[in-house]
């Protein structure tokens, strides 16, 4: 009896052990194999971009059952601030949003080279340098843009200015447009710097690029050419004349980027709107969500050609929203696999189709299907035969020089608070290499 009971107990015990082992092998094994990675993305308020990121993450999760993604959409400024603390303490997300104008993350060794994780052939060749350091690529450049000059066709016509077939006004014609707009009580240039460090400098620096040409413009941005250079002074004087004529809204200093969109295509309306081509992120949202009205007479013209300019067909091209991998992350396999799944021509095509914005990912123009085809055709036409200059001023300016650019060139100068001489003096003091 004892032995039988014992045998029975042993048998029951073995069965229990086997059941536990099987449960562990199934459930426990499943839990062990599934890795959760964290990802911080920008664009909480830009539906098309948000949907693109969400779709890529869902596709990845469906194809990789062993990986799950905890995806958060956080405003860009908050991502930078939080990431700066988090990378030091090992708490940063596995993948996070970053733009090339934050080089300190790369310099500090907090970014993982992606060469071993993604197929670099999925990236545009012109976009790779933005994230290349010492021969390695550190970011997936999803979002790219050119700096464009949008305009309201009806209002420009209403004030009596005909945009030429070249879609490029001369200096004098642009000044005339501004003065006619002011006389008609229409704000010539919708722009605000209430929440961004760059919009106020767009008209000036795009004009400087066309005046100086890429080489000297590069010198200016690298602190090797003075803002007191006569050519730079000429352009600054031209812009100052526009400012003094009333080119910008009176609320320029506090007007936010989103508000400047509304200002341009809703109320009170403006003749032009210098903006990177990510304009579409807000403009192509539904009108009830602050997007552009369906019948808005949108046009794209070139920035004005400078008198005796070295490069009238120059234009700024830049990489913006990208995704990077944290070098001290614990789930690099899953994180790398996610980035790999994003970095291909198919997704580049989807980005362009869905977001209506250029991408640093390769794409197949034949497969782009967009409800905004007319817009894309016009954008492509304005980008035909142009000479691209890579990077905006804040990609080059650092520390005190960047802060001076933000305070002086982005804000005070276009707001009419400072003279040409004072602005040049301050920029040289902060940026010019002695």
């Amino acid at each position, binding site marked *: 009896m004892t032995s039988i009971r014992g045998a029975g107990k042993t048998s029951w015990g073995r069965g229990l052990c086997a059941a536990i082992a099987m449960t562990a092998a199934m459930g426990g094994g499943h839990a062990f194999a599934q890795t959760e990675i964290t990802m911080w993305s920008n664009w909480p308020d830009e539906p098309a971009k948000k949907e693109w990121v969400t779709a890529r993450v869902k596709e990845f999760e469906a194809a990789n059952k062993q990986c799950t993604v905890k995806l958060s959409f956080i405003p860009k400024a908050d991502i*930078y*601030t939080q990431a*700066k603390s988090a990378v*030091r303490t090992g708490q940063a997300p596995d993948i996070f949003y970053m733009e090339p104008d*934050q*080089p*300190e993350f790369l*310099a*500090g*060794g*907090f970014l993982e080279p992606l060469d071993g994780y993604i197929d670099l052939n999925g990236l545009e060749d012109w976009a790779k340098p933005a994230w290349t350091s010492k021969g390695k690529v550190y970011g997936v450049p999803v979002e790219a843009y050119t700096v464009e000059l949008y305009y309201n066709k009806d209002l420009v016509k209403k004030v009596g200015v005909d945009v030429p077939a070249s879609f490029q006004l001369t200096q004098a014609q642009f000044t005339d447009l501004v003065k006619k707009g002011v006389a008609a009580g229409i704000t010539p240039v919708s722009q605000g710097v209430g929440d961004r460090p760059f919009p106020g400098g767009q008209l000036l620096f795009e004009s400087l690029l066309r005046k100086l040409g890429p080489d000297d413009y590069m010198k200016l941005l690298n602190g090797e050419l003075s803002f007191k250079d006569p050519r730079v002074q000429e352009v600054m004087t031209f812009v100052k004349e526009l400012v003094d004529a009333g080119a910008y*809204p*009176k*609320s*320029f*200093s*506090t007007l936010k980027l989103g508000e400047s969109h509304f200002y341009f295509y809703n109320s*009170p309306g403006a003749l032009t709107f210098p903006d990177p081509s990510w304009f579409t992120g807000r403009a192509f949202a539904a009108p009830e969500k602050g997007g552009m009205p369906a019948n808005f007479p949108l046009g794209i013209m070139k920035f004005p050609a400078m008198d005796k300019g070295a490069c009238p067909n120059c234009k700024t091209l830049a990489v913006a929203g990208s995704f990077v991998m944290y070098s001290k992350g614990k789930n690099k396999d899953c994180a790398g696999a996610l980035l790999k799944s994003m970095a291909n021509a198919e997704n580049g095509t989807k980005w362009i189709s869905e977001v209506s914005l250029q991408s640093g990912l390769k794409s197949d123009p034949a497969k782009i299907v967009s409800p905004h085809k007319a817009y894309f055709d016009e954008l492509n036409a304005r980008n035909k035969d142009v000479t691209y200059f890579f990077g905006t001023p804040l990609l080059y300016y*650092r*520390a*005190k020089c*960047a*802060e001076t650019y*933000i*305070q*002086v060139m982005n*804000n*005070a100068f276009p*707001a009419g*608070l*400072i003279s040409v001489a004072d602005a040049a003096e301050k920029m040289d003091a902060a940026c010019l290499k002695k």
Partner: protein
Amino acid sequence: MPDAISLRTTAKSGEAKASSRATLADPRRATRLVLAIFLGPALLVYCGLTAYPAFRTIYDSFFTIEGMDATFVGLANYRDLMGDETFWVAVRNTFIWSFVAPVIDVATGLLLALALYAGVPFARFLRVAWFTPVLLSYVVVAILWMWIYNYDWGVLNVMLRAVGLGDLASSWLGDPNLALAAVIVTHAWKWAGFNMVVCLAAIHSLPKEVLEASDLDNCGWGAKLRYIIVPMLRPTLLSLYILSFIGKMKVFDLVWIMTQGGPLWATETVSTYVYKRAFNWNTFDLGYPSAIATVWFLVVCAAVIILNRVLGSRERLEY
């Protein structure tokens, strides 16, 4: 019947228990173990969240920290700070905030308290209404006032235009000559209610005999305020001034949301500059911002001591 020895033993045991109870009841007689048990958690929190970060900030100020590497640089950060033009602009702005704004805050609070004390109509409603801004977060207050100050449709400019003073309509936060004042007014609006409540409590605690005596002497409101109420409220007003002063020496939130220190550094404060140097400077270096924070910590301590000495009354009012 208990004998004498057992009575003594019982008495001693009773004394010991009483002593033990007294020890627990009176912290001055508590043993070190008891003190440690009661103080330990609080001290731990204080050390971890206040003392350590403060000392670590001072320690970091002698280093340049790039990524995970710290390099000892001695007093170099302090030397650089002395020649940093933006730092001195921030110091000037912060001093203007700290010395001027508390006067506005306290005066406004006192006036509102006097209005309530005098029994203005709807006093109960006004007391709540005036105190409400204190309960709002800086973010809400900042956004509210950014709308008020908006050039195109802000209520301030709309009112000016409506009464024919359109020429005075300004970009309140965009003009370097107006921006600091505009932000100070916003700050005063937020804190007026707090000062009002404290002043009102202090006024109510004033001895009625003195005020009634002044009424008997036909003392008018102005004279009563000048010669009786304000002198008797002096300790309260001084405390409010110093509290306000300390708060303004560290002001950050409101400025950051409304102007981020602009335009042309017109509203830059030491706190916003520390933040910019720590998080917006394309560097991970915490050494330099730590040096600014250390210097400013010492300045705040010194200023409070000096203010206490200068403004503190040696005469003590007895009533």
